[in-house]
């Protein structure tokens, strides 16, 4: 099926894009339809992709193909923990779900802790130790970096009231934060326009133009 020589998939794509864009005018049934379809499909897609790409190759297949070999029997433990998460819906054994949740949170907190400490804090603290003795514009930027890092850290220091000198330094910190937010905002406006252009490019180049040129 290809009305006007354009594949049906492109028509569906264009129709749903326009449905979503129609929200800019006001809420309407077309938007509601596209929104509900999007929500439902994305959930189904996620379930499908996790089953196909993670559960099957990393859990089910190794256990079915060679249960005792390659320590595959150990996969029973994460499988049980995964199932335990659903115990929440059975009132009598709901408490067991907390154990699985604790393992999940525990693992990721451990990974995060090292990721932030080792990958962020130490790296960035080291990188803040910059020379001030050289001349030129580089030294000025280094001063900006040091003042910025210290004042923002003071702003996020909660153990003392921000009064007096501490208050003044933390005011400098908030200025640094606001300037960085401004830079971020500018980048985002660019990004949003490019997202919009992506959709318009699809509508114009993939849908309308081939239709006109036949």
């Amino acid at each position: 099926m290809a009305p006007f020589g354009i594949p049906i998939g492109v028509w569906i794509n264009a129709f749903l894009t326009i449905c979503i864009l129609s929200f800019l005018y006001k809420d309407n049934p077309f938007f509601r339809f596209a929104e509900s379809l999007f929500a439902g499909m994305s959930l189904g897609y996620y379930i499908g992709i996790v089953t196909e790409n993670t559960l099957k190759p990393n859990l089910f297949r190794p256990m079915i193909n060679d249960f005792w070999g390659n320590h595959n029997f150990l996969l029973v433990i994460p499988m049980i923990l995964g199932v335990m998460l659903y115990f929440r819906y059975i009132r009598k054994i709901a408490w067991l779900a907390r154990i699985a949740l604790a393992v999940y949170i525990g693992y990721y907190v451990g990974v995060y802790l090292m990721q932030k400490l080792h990958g962020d804090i130490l790296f960035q603290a080291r990188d803040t130790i910059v020379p001030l003795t050289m001349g030129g514009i580089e030294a000025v930027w280094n001063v900006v970096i040091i003042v910025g890092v210290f004042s923002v850290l003071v702003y996020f220091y909660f153990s003392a009231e921000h009064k007096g000198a501490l208050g003044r330094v933390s005011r400098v910190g908030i200025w640094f934060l606001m300037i960085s937010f401004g830079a971020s905002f500018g980048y985002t406006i660019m990004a949003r326009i490019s997202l919009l252009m992506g959709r318009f490019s699809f509508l114009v180049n993939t849908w309308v133009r081939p239709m006109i040129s036949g």
Partner: protein
Amino acid sequence: MRTSCLVIISIVLVLAAGGAWSQGMSGFPATELRAVDTPSDGGGSIDLEWEGEGLQFVLIMRATSPGGEFETIGDAIASDGSYTDMRLDDQTDYYYRLAYPAGEDTLLGAVAGPAQSKTNWFRSYRKNALVLTALMFILVISYVTQARKGKRLFIRRISGLSAIDEAVGRATEMGRKILYIPGILSLSEIQTIASLSILQHVSKLTAVYGTDIEVPNKDPLVFSAARETVKQAYMEAGRPDQFKEEMVTYLTYDQFAYAASVTAKMVRERPATNFLIGSFFAESLILAETGQSIGAIQIAGTADIPQLPFFVTACDYTLLGEELYAASAYLSKEPVLLGSIKAQDVVKAIIMVTVGAGIVILAFGSNIVRDVLFTR
């Protein structure tokens, strides 16, 4: 006769080889080869070290027995004095020798080994991370213990906190609902956990005032935890009968599908107050702008730096970065949260002092503090 001839030829050959060997050893650019397991690694590699000088290439040869066939696995410059042989099987004996191509001859060095590669428990060059982690643990545990014993730990009041109470009050006056969006990441994200403790405070207030609250979720685990949180808050407020399961709903896992559903909800149901507290990404501006367009009071909080500008622009009050964690500690008065904030403050002070000292010491030409903080 024939046997005697063979014996004589063999003796001559051995003597000739020996002569070449002793002659070769004198010109051999690398000596004293040592093979040891590479320290602080995940196994599968052996470090080779030797004494050598000059820019000649030496060949590195490996075998699994001292008398076995040695194969060339790589080369190195003699004066480098080291080579790491990777991709080995752990718990297997390996023997190494160096070879030096001198003209048409290849001179062979002495055999080193056996050496085995193995997985090491610790990476010794990450001591700095270990010390900082240990320090953090000690500080958290000691502050949490102090808080549990009833010691008052001071945390300054975040100016946005009173806005939370006002926002709930406004929704009550207007008779409209409160929408609480706990971010889009899972429970593995600390911001989500902080958000849930603020949700507990907010739902206690809605329970007391009898205001309607809705918590739409993107993550299934957060969904269950949020339902527990709200239920618990209603019980603690003495209004378990007012809790309804529909207060905490699940929408979808896709970021933008979730954003579309929540914005549609905002436009249709026109909540008086929106809380956007947790971890947000590109959907932050879509949510905050829609909330602003319907005239809702909006309180936001996130530690995702790129999203803060949108919240600062479109919301009435924003908890910036770590203020989110401090707010959850302040509101809940949970010893664990309070202790963590205090410990973090101490670590921040230590980092400031260390970095400050590093800058001063660097000005005097020493890199020592930078070296201490070096990670790999």
